[in-house]
């Protein structure tokens, strides 16, 4: 960012801060007076379909509509695409140096786009936000560069990517009052469930990303601890070939190839198929993300009240040779509201963009998703009233945000080319076709080449 752009950013921030915010009765967003009138481009992936049952997307659309209503002089030109298509188009726009005014930045693009000067440094702007004190600082990590600069307001909801959902009654019959804390106990249970003709845990890795996001990120942390991954992000010396990470891969391969814990078709079916095994009672547990929990919750509540009442949640069991963070689960925000660096040339427009970013990540959004979905976002909500929710939702909220230790979601960082190679190799590894050392070496080669 040059001096002129930096000055514009500071001025725009000061303008927004000095105007103050006044709560509006008509809308949940703060009705800030904005000097800008005209068009503001916004690109995101919260389609109508995405928002149905997805608290983050629903909250995003709701607060966005309220912001538009509060600022009728600003025409928001929305370009809304489904997530996969969004990622393709935003990459093309970045390649052509034609990013929209405001868009959602994926964590793994932060470093490269910042280096190319495509996105605006928002460090000072974020620090000047009226909601700064309530921001969950840990969520900024994917959008920071090594020099500490921040390039986005983390957006949508931070839900877990690795949760074990289990049927308490089935596990009680197997001799466990709660879900086992170690894989050794799960293997004992697998012998019992095998005799019953049901799978112990249902898992679906048909899309390849599930093994990474919903399993390895947490399992790896149990072996390496968070410092190793931070070092990998910072290019500070950690390697995929480090012994601790290879041990995590080795354990993963053992669990999927040498035990009978998982459904045989885990590499062919997706998480959407695998969770049906759990719902239908063909599996005693399921491993997936918060989106799977929401689906299972809604389905069982409607179709099977007994099974719904027996729905329990747990962290990934601890491997015998792992010694770190046994109560951890990976959680975070993969996208942030970011600005085209050219926006600095128009301070009024920039002020409008800042206001928009602050509102769609601020208390209006956080309250909406907490009250309606028991989910959390960037802005913390004090004393969330969970009294309106059933026990399952309250338990899941506390498990996600209060009772567990958090770790990072691997593929929110680094580079998609690296994860693409690791995910493909991992699928082969889980079939027993590749050894963990080779998988690690290939990932390291991709890391050195692309990051």
């Amino acid at each position, binding site marked *: 960012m040059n001096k002129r752009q930096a000055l514009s950013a500071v001025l725009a921030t000061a303008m927004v801060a000095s105007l103050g915010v006044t709560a509006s009765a008509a809308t949940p967003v703060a009705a800030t007076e904005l000097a800008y009138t005209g068009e503001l481009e916004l690109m995101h992936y919260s389609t109508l379909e995405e928002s149905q049952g997805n608290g983050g997307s629903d909250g995003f659309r709701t607060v966005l509509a309220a912001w538009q209503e509060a600022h009728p002089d600003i025409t928001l030109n929305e370009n809304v695409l489904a997530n996969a298509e969004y990622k393709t188009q935003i990459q093309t*726009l970045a390649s052509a140096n034609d990013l929209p005014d405001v868009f959602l930045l994926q964590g793994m693009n932060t470093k490269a786009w910042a280096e190319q000067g495509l996105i605006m440094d928002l460090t000072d702007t974020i620090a000047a936000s009226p909601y700064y004190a309530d921001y969950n600082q840990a969520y900024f990590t994917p959008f920071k560069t090594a020099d500490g600069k921040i390039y986005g307001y983390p957006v949508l909801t931070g839900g877990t990517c690795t949760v074990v959902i289990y049927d308490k009654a089935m596990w009680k019959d197997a001799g466990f009052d709660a879900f086992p804390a170690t894989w050794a106990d799960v293997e004992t249970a697998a012998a019992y469930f095998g005799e019953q003709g049901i799978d112990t845990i249902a898992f679906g890795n048909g899309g390849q990303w599930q093994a990474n996001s919903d399993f390895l990120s947490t399992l790896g942390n149990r072996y390496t601890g968070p410092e190793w991954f931070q070092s990998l992000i910072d290019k500070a010396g950690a390697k995929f070939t480090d012994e601790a990470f290879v041990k995590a891969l080795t354990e993963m391969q053992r669990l999927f190839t040498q035990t009978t814990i998982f459904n045989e078709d885990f590499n062919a079916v997706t998480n959407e*198929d695998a969770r049906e095994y759990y719902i239908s009672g063909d599996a005693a547990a399921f491993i997936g993300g918060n989106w*799977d929990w929401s689906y299972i919750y809604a389905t069982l509540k409607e179709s099977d009240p007994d099974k719904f009442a027996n729905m329990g949640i747990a962290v990934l069991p601890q491997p015998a040779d792992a010694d770190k963070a046994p109560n951890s689960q990976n959680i975070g925000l993969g996208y942030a509201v970011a600005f085209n660096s050219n926006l600095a040339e128009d301070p009024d427009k920039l002020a409008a963009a800042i206001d928009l970013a602050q509102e769609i990540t601020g208390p209006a959004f956080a309250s909406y998703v907490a009250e309606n979905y028991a989910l959390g976002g960037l802005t913390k909500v004090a004393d969330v009233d969970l009294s309106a929710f059933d026990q399952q939702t309250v338990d899941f909220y506390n498990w996600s945000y209060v009772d567990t230790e958090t770790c990072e979601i691997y593929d929110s960082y680094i580079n998609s080319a690296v994860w693409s190679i690791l995910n493909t190799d991992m699928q082969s590894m889980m079939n027993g076709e590749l050894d963990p050392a080779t998988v690690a070496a290939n990932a390291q080669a991709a890391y050195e080449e692309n990051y």
Partner: protein
Amino acid sequence: MKNNGTHKLKKGFLGVFMNLILWIFSLSCIFPIIWMFYSSLKEKRVFNADIIGLPSEPTLLNYTRILSNPDYHLGASIWNSARTTLLSIAMIVAFSFIVGYILSRVRFKLNRVLYVMFLMGMLIPIHSLLVPIYIVFQKCGISNQWFTLLLPYVSFGLPMGIFLVEGFVKTVPVDLEEAAAIDGSSFSHTLWTIIFPICRPILVTVAIIQVFSCWNEFSFALVLLKDVGLQTVPLALTQFKGQFASDYPKQMAAMLITMAPILVLYFAFSKQIINGMVAGAVKG
């Protein structure tokens, strides 16, 4: 007599076997459509529990949800696709005919060079051109307009069209044009009233191939259009897919709705289409 009977039996068995194979091939083509139809009558939960089974309680809920919600803008996307496809086809057919004819009949110095250059268009993967084309369109101010897609669709449709027409025109006797010239017919009159009707089978083939290509095209539409109101059908269909989950029955209902214009077109012109395909296969 006995040999004759054995021969008939063998022939009969062979006939049954061949028919069986054809039935299997036909069913493999038709079944996905049938599956899409009855799956669109299921709710998401029922579909996810059993993706192949018939619906126990068929419902039109997916159709009513799609058609009653303007946010899905399927009608607008069908109109956008139809307009872009029809205009593209008209231009591809007209330009392919003229260029193909000239390359086939008129001898000039760079004739073969030009022909090869056109054919090169079939060898270039469009994904490698997405970013450069986007930049050019953006600099020229012609991206994100209702006519934006016409240029790439026509450009990438022409090589195949020219290749087919050029080959077809070679099979048309030159005597026809010479006789017309002797009778006083002008070049353009001969071209449009004599050669064009003769080339109709191959032009129908070109049109058929390009209709499906333009209607289904995704990459250029994704990159060159930003306005939701300009989205074509393939782009509009992506909205039924979520980041972590998809509502497949609703997606299938939407696909069937958007397939309707193409199906109507196919049934309306099935005779010409089949004739055109056969002509293209034999003479192209």
